[in-house]
């Protein structure tokens, strides 16, 4: 049972890496907390459901469509909200309030138009049946989702460390003011990062029906809490630390389900408290500050 729980936890955690990755990217670049991040995950899930039920589009194709559409939506949304936020004296705190409002609005509108019933995608589209890893029986959709997550992490790595835009993005992450002083178009760099962040949330949403069983308009809040725990563990502002955060969360959850199942939903909060008390900078704190 122990090995099975650990293997399943790693795979499940990789999915939550994808959920948290965009949230961490936005915090790293803009120093704002997008509390509506989970709602964009939810919207990605509904987009995949709609594309499959209305046009028969496979979720993997849907993921590509969602990526393009969410980047396109994210950039104007950035210009609409973030520059004004950053002019405020306490932009981090203000961002919490503003994005919480946005989250509530998205959930309310989704409820009005989509209703409250559960929606899902049929398991057969990603394959039914287990994949056995070290004796643990893992659902095929979990392995698909983990693989997509790994691809997304690799893509973010390439973007940050192998492209000129990525170099500029890291410059903004280190010091926004110095980046401005050296002539970097900070708003353009940030808008692209914001668009990528929403796209990552949207792609995570495409796989949410497979990982969570089904989706409803209110899943955003719970996903936000989990994503926040994942990125705090992996270090706020360090997108690649999110991988470790996700795996720590996934393995801890599966161990809790195995040995203390009734208490499993306390886990994100316990992790948050533990990390903030013991190592507030997260597991990779030093690396972030020097990014």
């Amino acid at each position, binding site marked *: *049972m122990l090995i*099975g*729980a650990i293997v*399943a*936890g790693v795979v*499940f955690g990789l999915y939550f890496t994808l959920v948290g990755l965009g949230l961490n990217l936005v915090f790293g670049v803009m120093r704002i907390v997008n509390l509506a991040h989970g709602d964009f995950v939810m919207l990605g899930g509904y987009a995949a459901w709609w594309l499959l039920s209305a046009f028969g589009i496979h979720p993997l194709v849907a993921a590509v469509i969602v990526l393009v559409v969410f980047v396109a939506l994210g950039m104007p949304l950035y210009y609409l909200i973030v520059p004004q936020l950053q002019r405020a004296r306490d932009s981090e705190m203000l961002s919490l309030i503003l994005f919480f409002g946005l989250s509530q609005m998205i*959930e*309310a509108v989704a*409820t009005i138009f*989509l*209703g*409250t*019933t*559960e*929606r*899902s995608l*049929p*398991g*057969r589209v990603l394959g*039914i*049946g*287990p994949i056995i890893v070290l004796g*643990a*029986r*893992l*659902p*095929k*959709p*979990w392995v698909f989702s983990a693989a997509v997550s790994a691809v997304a992490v690799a893509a973010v790595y390439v973007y940050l460390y192998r492209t000129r835009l990525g170099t500029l993005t890291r410059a903004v992450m280190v010091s926004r003011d110095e980046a401005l002083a050296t002539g970097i178009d900070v708003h353009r760099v940030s808008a692209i990062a914001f668009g990528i962040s929403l796209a990552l949330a949207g792609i995570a949403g495409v796989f949410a029906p497979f*990982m*969570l*069983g*089904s989706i*409803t*308009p*209110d899943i955003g809040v*719970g996903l936000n809490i989990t994503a926040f725990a994942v990125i705090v563990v992996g270090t706020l502002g360090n997108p690649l630390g999110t991988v470790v955060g996700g795996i720590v969360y996934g393995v801890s959850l*599966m161990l809790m*389900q*195995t040995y203390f*199942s*009734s*208490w*499993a*939903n306390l886990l994100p909060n316990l992790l948050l408290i533990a990390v903030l008390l013991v190592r507030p900078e997260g597991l990779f704190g030093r690396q972030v500050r020097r990014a």
Partner: protein
Amino acid sequence: MRLRRGVLAALALLATTMGGLAARAAPAPAEIKIGTLYASSGPFASISMPVFDGIKLWVQQVNARGGVYVKPFHKKIPIKLVAYDDQSSTATAATLYNQLITQDHVNLLLSDSGSVLTSVAVPIAKEHKMFLFDVSGTGGTFFTKDNPYIGLMAIPVSTIWPKAISDFLDDVGVKHGIKTVAILYATNDFTGTQASALKGFLEKDGKVKIVYDQGVPTSTSNYTVLINNIAATKPDAVAELGFPGNDIAFLRNLQDSGEKFRFVFTIYGGAEMDEVLKNAGAAAMKDTFSYVPSALYQYKVNFGPTLPQYHAAWEKAYPKGAGVEWGSNAVYGYMTGLVIQRALATTSGMSQLDLHHAVFALSGKLKTLDGPFELNGEGAQVGELTPIGQLQPNAKGGLDLVSVYPPQFAHGKAVFGK
């Protein structure tokens, strides 16, 4: 002395008569206010919104006929539904129940769907001496001898539901080699009470051994590791007791895991069959067992529409794709309306204790599309039944919920996996 007593008696009689005349002379209100809550979002939205839509449909039908007949005023009076959104939050619900009683001064109080959102209404209604029409809050602790201000309308109290599972496993399962069972449940008033009751029945009978017994948070959305852990205990039967979201995730993960158990039971596979089927798929639900809800079993009625008549009215009011699925909760809300309708037509007055007496007087006499209505002395529903059904393949390639137990309600035979 005798004269003085006589004068006092005459005065008392006069006062009583005048009081009675005053009551009779009280003008009829312009409307009967019914207060309730609903959850448009959150974990209980999927069981709350069908109940609320059922109540709205009943109000709409009654008002279209000029209102509800209220015996103390000898006339029909329109109903005004006062409803607030508690968003599945017990804290919000507590505030709003108080608001319905103290600010809106509703005449009748209905709780939101399910035990969790009803749990906060029970003490508030008791404190304000307001009779609570408990639609589907089945927690066993809600019903006590010292509280006359509650009556469970639409489904049996949680403590008696699992008797059918236990009896079925003991009577039928054992003959087919079912010797061990795993129980996995969501830790809330509704399913937690059922799990506890099921364990009690099974342990008392001693025919089927419990080899796994774990609770999980109601928010649980992945069961892969839990299913692996259950499989490690090699049970013949698995009872997963959760809300619709739990059942969907469990059935999907069970199918993905490739694990097979000879008997798999979920609550909402039958109770909200359309919704679970839509999300989990027929392959994941095939041959699983569930309770047969009133939405899928036609009872003889002596008041209100039959099940097909109501289903047709529901489909007309809420076409498919409107966001709320037909299911047992759709029946519960409407059925509560029927109890209110009968109670107002027979009550001797409009006080909350008069309403209590009127509702309890219907016990054992009223038969609606939800089955026989019967309350015990504490207000818990004991009349409506929970037969066991199995989702068996039909000729069209879909699934039918076939009632298999108890024998008097059976339409088919149970098929156990290998």
